[in-house]
C-alpha cells in the first residue's frame, strides 16, 4: 500500500487534474498549429497568391519515390507562388500518424518551415523554431539530399526523418515547378 502522505498528495494531484480537464477540455489532440491557407498567405505580400498545380509525371514520381522511400499519395501537387517564391503543403507519416508541414522555398533554398498539424503521440518538439530553424537556407544537393545535417531530437527520430524527407521533396518540387 502507498504511504499515507503519498496517497494524500495523489488525491490532491487528482483533484488538480480534474480541475485541469474542465479548463483545458476544449482542446484536441490532433494539434493544428496553423491552417494551410494561413501559412501560404503569411508567406506572400499579396492577400491572394496564385495557386498552381504540379503534375507528378512518371519522372517526378520516380524521384519522389526515391526521396520518400514510398509512392507519393498525390497525383498532382498544389502550390502557391509569387515571383520565385513557392509554398508547399506536404504530408508524411512519422511513426504512425500523418504530419502536415508547410515549406516556403525561394531561389532553391528553404526560407521557412512550419509544422501545421501534428498527430503523433510523441515527438511534437519538432514544431519548435529551435528545430525548424535548422532548415532555413537549406538547399538540395545533387543527390537530392539536403546540403546540411539536421540535428535530431531524442525520442522523435521518425518525426525528424519525416520532416527531412518533406523538406527534400519541397525543394525538388520547387525546382521542377520553376523549370516548367
Amino acid at each position, binding site marked *: 500500500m502507498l504511504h499515507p502522505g503519498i496517497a494524500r498528495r495523489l488525491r490532491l494531484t487528482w483533484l488538480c487534474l480534474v480541475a*485541469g480537464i474542465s479548463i483545458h477540455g476544449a482542446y484536441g*489532440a490532433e494539434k493544428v498549429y496553423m491552417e494551410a491557407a494561413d501559412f501560404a498567405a503569411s508567406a506572400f505580400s499579396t492577400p491572394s497568391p496564385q*495557386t498552381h498545380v504540379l503534375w507528378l509525371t512518371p519522372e517526378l514520381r520516380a524521384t519522389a519515390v526515391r526521396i520518400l522511400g514510398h509512392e507519393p*499519395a498525390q497525383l498532382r501537387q498544389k502550390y502557391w507562388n509569387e515571383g520565385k517564391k513557392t509554398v508547399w503543403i506536404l504530408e508524411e*507519416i512519422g511513426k504512425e500518424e500523418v504530419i502536415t508541414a508547410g515549406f516556403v522555398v525561394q531561389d532553391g533554398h528553404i526560407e521557412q518551415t512550419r509544422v501545421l498539424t501534428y498527430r503523433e503521440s510523441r515527438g511534437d518538439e519538432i514544431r519548435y523554431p529551435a528545430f525548424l530553424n535548422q532548415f532555413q537556407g537549406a538547399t538540395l544537393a545533387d543527390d537530392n539530399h539536403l546540403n546540411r*545535417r539536421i540535428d535530431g531530437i531524442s525520442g522523435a527520430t521518425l518525426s525528424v526523418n519525416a520532416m527531412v524527407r518533406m523538406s527534400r521533396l519541397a525543394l525538388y518540387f520547387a525546382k521542377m515547378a520553376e523549370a516548367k
Partner: protein
Amino acid sequence: MSAPHLKTSPRLIPSLLACLLTAGLSVAQGAVPTLEEKIEILQQELEELKRQVAQNQAATTRLANNTAGNTGGAGSGNAIASAGNSLASSATTIGGYGELSYNRYRNNNTYDNQADLNRFVLFFGHRFNDKLRFMSEMEVEHAVSSSSDQGEAEIEQAYLDYNLNDKLNFKAGLFLMPLGILNETHEPPTYYGVMRNEVETRIIPSTWREGGIGVYGEVLPGLRYDVGVTTGFNAAKIDDPAFAIRGGHQEMQLSKANDLSVYAALNYRAPGLLLGGGVFTGGTAQKGASLADPTAKALLQNSKARLTLWDLHGKYSIGDLDLQALYAKGTLGDADTVAAAIAAQQIADSTGTGIAIPKSFYGWYGQAAYHLWRSDDMELIPFVRYERYNTQKEVAAGFTANPLNDERAVTAGANFKLHPQVVLKADYQKFRADPGKDRLNLGVGYMF
C-alpha cells in the same frame, strides 16, 4: 482509351466520373483555369487513368495465374498495397522493429558463441478519435517460445492514451517507464552497439514496463514531465544478482499489487540535446504473496522492501559528433529480510541457500559516436563506450558480493546505416572483471 477497354473495365466509369469531379473541385478551390488549362488537366487525368487500368490489368493477370488456394494471400496483399498509396492513414496502424545478433567470444570456455533473433516486435495502434488512441507492442524474444525453449512471447506495451492538450495527457494500461535513454526509445537503429548497453540492461532493467496510470505533458517548450502510479517489483522473484533487481520485474503477468509504486521524470529536448532524469519508488515485499513457505511468507508480510531507482542522463550533438552519458542508482530497503525470505523458501524447496540480494547498485557510462561518412541514405558511424557498473555495491547481511558483478566494460565498433531505419552493426566488447565475456558482436536491426 479504346472502347473495348471501357467495356471490359467496369471500374473505369466511376473512376472517370470521380476524376472529372476532382478536376471540378480543383477548379473551385483555386483560381479559375483557362480552357487550355482545363484540357491539360483532363489530359493528365486520362494519362493517369490509362496507367491505373494497365496496372489493374496486370494485377488481374497475376491473380488469374495464381492457384485458387492463394486467394486469401492476394487479397491481403492488395489491402496492404492500397494502404501504402494513401497518406489518409487508417485508424489502425502497424509498425515494428527487430534485431538479430551473433556473439563470438574470445575464449569460449565459459560462454558459448551464439546467433540469435533477439527480438521480433510488432506495434499495433488504433485511433478511436482525435483524442483517444490505443498503443501496443507485441514481442517474441529468441525466435521460439515454448515450454522447452528460452524464448518469450510478451506484451511490451498495451495502453490507452487520452490527449487533452500539450500540457495534459493521460495514459492507462501497460507502458514503458520513463527512466534512462534506452528504455522508451529502444529500436535498434536508435542506439549504438549490437547489444543494448550494460547499464541500461542490468541497473535500469530495459525494456521495463509497468501497469498503471500516468499523466504527461509539456510544461515549457521542450520540457516534458511524466508522472504516474503503477505496479512495482516483487522482491521474492529476484534470482540473479548479476542483473541487480531485474528478476523481480513482474511484467504485468498476474502482478502482485499489494505494494504499488510511483514514478516521475523530467526531460528537456531540443535539436541535438537531451537532458533529463527520472525516479521510481515503491514497495517490493508484496506481502510475500508469491512465497509458499509460511516462514518465508511471514518475513515479507510486515516488510516494505522499498525499491528506489533513479537516473540522470544527457545527449549532445556537436556537428557530426554525438555524445551521450547516463548515471543510474538503485537501493533496496529491508534487503536483509528479503534475502532471509528467499533463503527460507529455497531451503524449504531444497533449491539453494539464498541469494546475495543487493542493498544498493549503480552504473554509469559515457559514449561518443562520429558520423564519419554518408552517401545517399547510407551512413557509417563508429563509436566507443565506457561503462562502469556494480550490481551488488552493497548486499544483504551474511552474504558476499560476487566480484564479477563489479565490472568495467569498453565497447568499440560501428553502426552502418543502409537506410535511416535499417542498420548493420559490428563491435568488440572487453570486460575487466570477467574477461571470459570479451566478445565480437555482429548484428542487424530495423524499424518501420
